């Protein structure tokens, strides 16, 4: 099936993965506009992103000399320990010899190349190619590479089977009205019902989605009812940066007097941690399920349920899966960069406003 819906880009995924690897500078070997928005966000997260600004002339004559020059400039300007050079559609189609340029720049001890372009399929391919390059450069071991590769392939399956790549075309939607959803949750608590909240978030977006269980728990303290807290916040899984996200969020929960009943996995394990969360709930009594983050990775359950996603194009597939309400946290990527604590979510704010907490 030819899927018409635009989907995330492998080049951008490669940039994000370099950030996960704590690379200091990403050099995008391509036109100045390629990865523009992601580059700005990643800068907020501490990784420098620069471009070789390939022009029409470079497209014809090649831009290896320009890349060498940019690498040397980057080394002078930022004194980085690690540089990732990311391909783009144009540089890869014209067959730029990036590895040779890195050697010629004299920076082969700190710079490595990710051979990726926009026509290589799902965004996860960009992440996998980056991890492969990082493994070959000695940044991660084979075991960690294999673990992450497995997760990324499963994430691709999730989108194909239950997400935005499920249908030929999926129109975007902002989903249900936040006030309606917040009131519904609060009314459940007022009726002394039990809410199971599953935080199944992807990497740094956990900083934002964690605000929703936080708001529900605080509302529960005021109105009654009870909450089962499940979260993919293992502090023992993944790269050090990824583990740090989990530690930060757990600290915030603890400082608000909230404990997690079940850790379903790491924050990069969202393709499998949702299933573990549902398995944990199998023999538990609860009245409402609230799944936040990547709810499309959860098996469908026949319960009253609410999903909070980060993608407007995930809304209709989730509605089709049977969720009573689906809402979108539209700013989930832009608000979490550079943070070390839970950031305000839209739904969390509405719950707090209504509850006065």
């Amino acid at each position, binding site marked *: 099936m030819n899927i018409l819906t635009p989907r995330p880009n492998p080049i951008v995924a490669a940039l994000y993965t370099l950030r996960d690897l704590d690379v200091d500078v990403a050099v995008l070997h391509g036109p100045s506009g390629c990865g523009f928005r992601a580059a700005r966000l990643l800068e907020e997260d501490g990784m420098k992103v620069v471009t070789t600004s390939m022009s029409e*002339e470079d497209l*014809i*004559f*090649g831009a*290896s000399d320009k890349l060498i020059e940019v690498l040397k400039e980057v080394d002078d300007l930022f004194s980085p320990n690690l540089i990732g050079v990311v391909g783009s559609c144009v540089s890869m189609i*014209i*067959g730029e010899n990036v590895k040779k340029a890195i050697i010629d720049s004299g920076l082969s001890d700190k710079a490595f190349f990710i051979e990726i372009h926009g026509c290589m399929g799902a965004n996860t391919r960009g992440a996998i190619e980056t991890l492969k390059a990082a493994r070959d450069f000695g940044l991660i071991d084979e075991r960690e590479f294999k673990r992450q590769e497995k997760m990324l392939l499963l994430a691709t399956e999730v989108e194909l089977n239950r997400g935005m790549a499920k249908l030929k075309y999926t129109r975007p939607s902002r989903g249900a009205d936040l006030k309606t959803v917040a009131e519904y949750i609060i009314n459940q608590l007022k009726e002394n019902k039990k809410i199971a909240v599953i935080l199944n978030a992807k990497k740094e977006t956990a900083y934002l989605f964690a605000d929703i269980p936080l708001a529900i728990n605080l509302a529960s303290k005021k109105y009654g009812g009870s909450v089962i807290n499940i979260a993919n916040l293992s502090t023992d899984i993944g790269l050090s940066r990824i583990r740090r996200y989990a530690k930060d969020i757990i600290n915030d929960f603890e400082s608000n007097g909230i404990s997690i009943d079940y850790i379903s996995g790491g924050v990069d394990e969202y393709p499998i941690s949702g299933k573990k969360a549902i398995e944990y709930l199998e023999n538990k009594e609860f009245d409402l399920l609230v799944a936040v983050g990547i709810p499309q990775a959860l098996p469908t359950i026949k319960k009253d349920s609410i999903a909070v996603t980060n993608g407007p194009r995930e809304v209709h597939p989730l509605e089709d899966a049977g969720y009573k309400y689906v809402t979108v946290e539209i700013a989930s990527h832009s608000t979490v960069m550079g943070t070390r604590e839970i950031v305000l979510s839209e739904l969390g704010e509405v719950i707090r406003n209504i509850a006065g907490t």
Partner: protein
Amino acid sequence: MKQIAIYGKGGIGKSSISSNLSVNLASNGLEVLLVGCDPKSDSAINLFGGRRIDTVLDLYKKGVTDPDKLVFEGFNGVKAVEVGGPAAGVGCAGRGILVALKTLNKDYYLEKGFDVVIYDVPGDVVCGGFAGPAREGYADEIYIVTSGEYLSIYAANNIVKGLFNLNVKLGGIIGNMRGITNEVEKIELYAKEIDSSLIGAIERNHKIHESEIEGKTVLEKYPNDPLNLKFKDIGSKILQNKKAKVPTPTVDEKIRSILGGVY
């Protein structure tokens, strides 16, 4: 104005035929522009005594995009342009052709009053850029240069596949003979197979070789040689050709069968 593009297997003699055709058409009083599309920039070399002219892309790098500064006048008043391109193994020559063609376009040719524009295009149709001269607004029809040898006809058929896919008209085949047995017959049979025709053939002739060593066309070095009449004849057939049509490529087995049947 008529625009044609010459395609064919690498090394088959496209540039020799293009430059000799150009000077002979010009000697009939026509305004001729030869556009060399090979990154090696050797299409027009025989119009300038072996001297290489500045290429469109080299000048483009220097910020020169005025078409008047990209066109040079060679032997017999033939105007010539070399597209040029990147050094071997880097960049994208195909993109270079597209950029150059955008600079040199039909409006400019009409403004300058050219009667004939000949694009000399390298090798097979290797990517979209090399197919540029065959696209709408550029060549009205294509001519393929081939010998009667198997690999040359195989390459010709590959070009025919490209023309078929692009819905581009083929004016005919120009034979550049290598002296093999029944060569004209072999090319004619292949041309018929693809629904085209052999419009003329240049016999193997040492005078072409000798002229090129001096960076000249045959007309310049041997002005009274009958070979020039052959080029003039092919030139006038091209100008009068009304039978150009989209060819139908054949299969490799058929090419082998045609060539094998006329040993």
